[in-house]
């Protein structure tokens, strides 16, 4: 693995150094006292971009004060600018006009601009970052300081039901592309001052806001520090999605298994935070990262905790089985039908034999062919314009499935196996773990086709060894099975009722492990006792 890693790194590193020179930050320039030269400077650096708005006006202050409001169209709240910046500037009340002590800057700062978030700007880089994050810059004639007023806004997608990770019961809110909204969604769920948030800007060109949110006192401080560390080390020009961050900070890069979870659901993120996970919010994407994470977390849906525990335990176990099936079904079929025919019941063997009669390809090729066909179908289904999406299913199901069998290209059994595999692949609540199974499936089919069940066993062993070695921010990937933690078993394969989950999962949480009092449990016990007492009485 390391070899391949090195292979990628070595050739590229000095090229990167050369490229980065071009993106070197703009030289800091002091603002001048002249309004027009400042306007010219901004225009020049922005290349006269047309979405940059310069509103020059003369405020009726003193002998008339030349002021310019500069903002970027689209990312600002126009009403706010009109009501709180332009209007007070143009129609200042009498006494404001009468007392211009302290110079125009102080007057504007103290009395005219009715905006909450306001800051002083004297240098260009500051000015640009303020401008680009939606603030309005107020330049004043004869003053080398400008005022940046918080007016960000503009149209963004509102909070909608998440498209992925659908649930039947539970919150219908989903994260949006706006990091402020996303943070507020979490704040509304965890109303605690211990919900801490650290924000940094990553990406030299994109200047993307990345926030780390965690529950102080529950999240492991070392992990928080480590995540901060890794985020600080990211040196790239762009962050467009949380996937960028995920790849930069994950522990192991050469693995099909995800070591960081993502979710579109605020309730899932809140639940994670409450169990000591750390959420990483990235501006511009509704997918919030959660770390550290274990393998089993990917099989837990937030809905597991909303429905009855007994039913969800069953469904959860079914998910694990479906995952194993989606990884193993085709390879088992290939191995058993080409190497271990004695394992099949006679009648099944006979009907499989009859199906294979006249099929020209070996089972291995047949399986790879069908799997590939399905992967193409699935990919096409995602990319297809929605209007012709249904055409794909018709073509896929009828033409490829039925016709291929009738034409004698593939056996009917193989079609059943492939379709079952495909369906069971969608059961996993997290799509990134399902993709891992999809990828490993091909390796296992190949192993099965060459070495039979021995090949599958060898492959599974290799996968298991690999997984046992994985870590997510220091937490072993297979926790709490390997290493085995008895106390955490309440919420891995089964889900015990809420009143029994008194402790937060160990290992993720080192401090404040208790999550609830034992009163609910005690109440349950007393109810039970009462019942049994009643029974004893005749």
């Amino acid at each position: 693995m390391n070899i391949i890693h090195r292979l990628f790194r070595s050739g590229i590193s000095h090229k990167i150094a050369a490229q980065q020179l071009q993106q070197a930050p703009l030289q800091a320039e002091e603002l001048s006292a002249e309004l027009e030269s400042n306007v010219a400077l901004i225009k020049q650096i922005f290349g006269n971009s047309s979405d940059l708005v310069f509103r020059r006006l003369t405020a009726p202050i003193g002998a008339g004060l030349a002021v310019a409001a500069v903002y970027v169209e689209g990312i600002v709240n126009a009403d706010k600018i009109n009501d709180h910046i332009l209007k007070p500037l143009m129609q200042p009340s009498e006494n404001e006009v009468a007392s211009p002590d302290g110079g125009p800057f102080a007057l504007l700062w103290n009395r005219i601009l009715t905006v909450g978030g306001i800051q002083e700007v004297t240098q260009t880089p500051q000015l640009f970052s303020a401008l680009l994050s939606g603030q309005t810059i107020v330049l004043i004639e004869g003053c080398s300081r400008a005022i940046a007023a918080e007016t960000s806004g503009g149209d963004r997608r509102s909070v909608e039901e998440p498209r992925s990770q659908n649930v039947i019961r539970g919150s219908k809110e989903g994260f949006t592309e706006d990091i402020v909204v996303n943070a507020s969604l979490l704040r509304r769920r965890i109303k605690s001052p211990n919900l801490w948030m650290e924000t940094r800007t990553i990406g030299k060109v994109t200047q993307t806001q990345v926030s780390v949110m965690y529950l102080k006192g529950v999240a492991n401080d070392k992990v928080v520090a480590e995540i901060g560390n890794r985020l600080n080390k990211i040196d790239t020009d762009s962050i467009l999605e949380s996937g960028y961050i995920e790849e930069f900070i994950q522990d192991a890069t050469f693995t099909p298994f995800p070591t960081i979870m993502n979710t579109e659901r605020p309730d899932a993120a809140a639940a994670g935070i409450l169990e000591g996970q750390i959420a990483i919010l990235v501006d511009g994407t509704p997918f919030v990262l959660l770390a550290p994470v274990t393998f089993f977390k990917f099989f837990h849906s937030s809905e597991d905790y909303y429905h009855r525990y007994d039913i969800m335990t069953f469904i959860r176990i079914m998910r694990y089985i479906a995952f194993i099936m989606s990884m193993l079904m085709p390879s088992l079929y290939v191995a058993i039908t080409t190497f271990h025919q004695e394992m099949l019941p006679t009648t099944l063997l006979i009907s499989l034999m009859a199906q294979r009669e006249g099929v020209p390809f070996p089972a291995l090729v047949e399986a790879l062919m069908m799997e590939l066909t399905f992967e193409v179908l699935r990919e096409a289904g995602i990319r297809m314009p929605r209007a012709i999406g249904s055409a794909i299913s018709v073509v896929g199901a009828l033409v490829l499935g039925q016709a291929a069998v009738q034409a004698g290209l593939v056996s009917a059994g193989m079609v059943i196996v492939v379709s079952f595999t495909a369906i069971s692949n969608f059961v996993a609540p997290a799509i990134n773990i399902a993709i891992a199974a999809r990828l490993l499936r091909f390796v296992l089919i190949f192993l099965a086709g060459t070495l039979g069940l021995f090949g599958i066993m060898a492959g599974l062993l290799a996968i298991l060894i690999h997984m046992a070695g994985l870590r997510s921010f220091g937490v072993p990937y297979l926790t709490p099975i390997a290493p085995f933690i008895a106390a955490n078993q309440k919420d891995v394969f089964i889900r015990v009722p809420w009143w029994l989950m008194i402790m937060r999962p160990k290992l993720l949480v080192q401090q404040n492990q208790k999550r609830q009092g034992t009163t609910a449990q005690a109440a349950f016990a007393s109810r039970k006792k009462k019942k049994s007492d009643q029974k004893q009485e005749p």
Partner: protein
Amino acid sequence: MKRAGQMLFALFGLFVLGGCWNRVELNELSVIMGTAIDVEDNQWLTTFQVIIPQAIASQTVGGGGVSQSPISVFSTKGDSLAQAIQKISLESSRTPFFAHNRILIISEKAAREKGVSQIVDFYLRDGESRETVDVVLSKGPAKSILEVLNPQEKIPANAIDRIFYETETQLSFARRIKLSEFAAMLVTPALSAVAPEIRISGEREHRQSIDELAQTRQKAVLKIGDIGVFRKDKLAAWLSRDESIGIAWLSDRIENSVISFPCSDEEPESRRSTFLVDRSRTKITPVITSDTIKIKAAIDAHGTLDETGCNVNLSKPESIKLMEGQIKKQIERDIALSWKRAQALKTDIFGFGDKVHIHYPRKWKQLEQQWFDKLPDIELVSDLRVSIRRTGMINDSFSSKVKE
């Protein structure tokens, strides 16, 4: 970089050079469902019943009906069994596959002349064939058994296996003997191996034709016949069906059985009733005194009265008692018949030797060598307890109502 390439190459080689191990596609297999072993001109003649999958799973291929025989039979000859089996590749286009072999039919001639130990050795030694194969004997040539088609089952070998299963669970007088059990019986010194016989009843010449299946009544059917008793590894004698039910009673193998018994000692034989045994337990205890060996057989059987032609009032406990007494007598007669025959043959087909071994381990050491010779002197004492648990849907016998 270079090392990575080498490693990848080595991994790739692992798969490619493995040559796909012993890969056989399903459509390259000929699944053998039944094997018959005969002796001809002092050579082994092996016959295989091979299935034709398309003909069996006809609905997936289209067509259907009885256009194609679901099985095909190959016969090969050789000096040894393995040699004869290998010769199948001279005429079959597919690889023979023994793992699903259901039955092994040994002809009387082979079992009497050559003995079965070589056959058992071959089957146990071969990795592909299973020890769960049923061992069956045939009085005529074994290969002709495999040629008979069954109207109910598409695979005749399966049909034979099912016939044995039905007999075993419904009548109990013959049972499936798996190769592993057969081998165990052969090597147990104080036990005589047994195996059931299967025969073709009806007109032989009609048995092979697929057109035969279009008839409602088969001209030739397979039927369970006698029980073959072995001495050492050679077939020694046959027990008839009447003689063989006693074996099941004495070796605690009764699952269900039907006992037909006369109404009373006085009434004529023609009027009989039937008792359906639901459950039965047999406990064998040998009692050895200084000079005699006694075998005590305590049998506890209960079941249902299935039919009666007798003029009895079944609501009275006395008449039930009377009937139970008759059943007892009938079972005793059955047991005595088997026992006498076994004594005459000097074979222990009930496993009494084992019981003696368990109860009298020290004395057994002296008895072991001459156990079979001692058999005629052993007294069998049976102690039966029969109870009629249910009398069915009606109480009084219908014939008694008619007469009134």
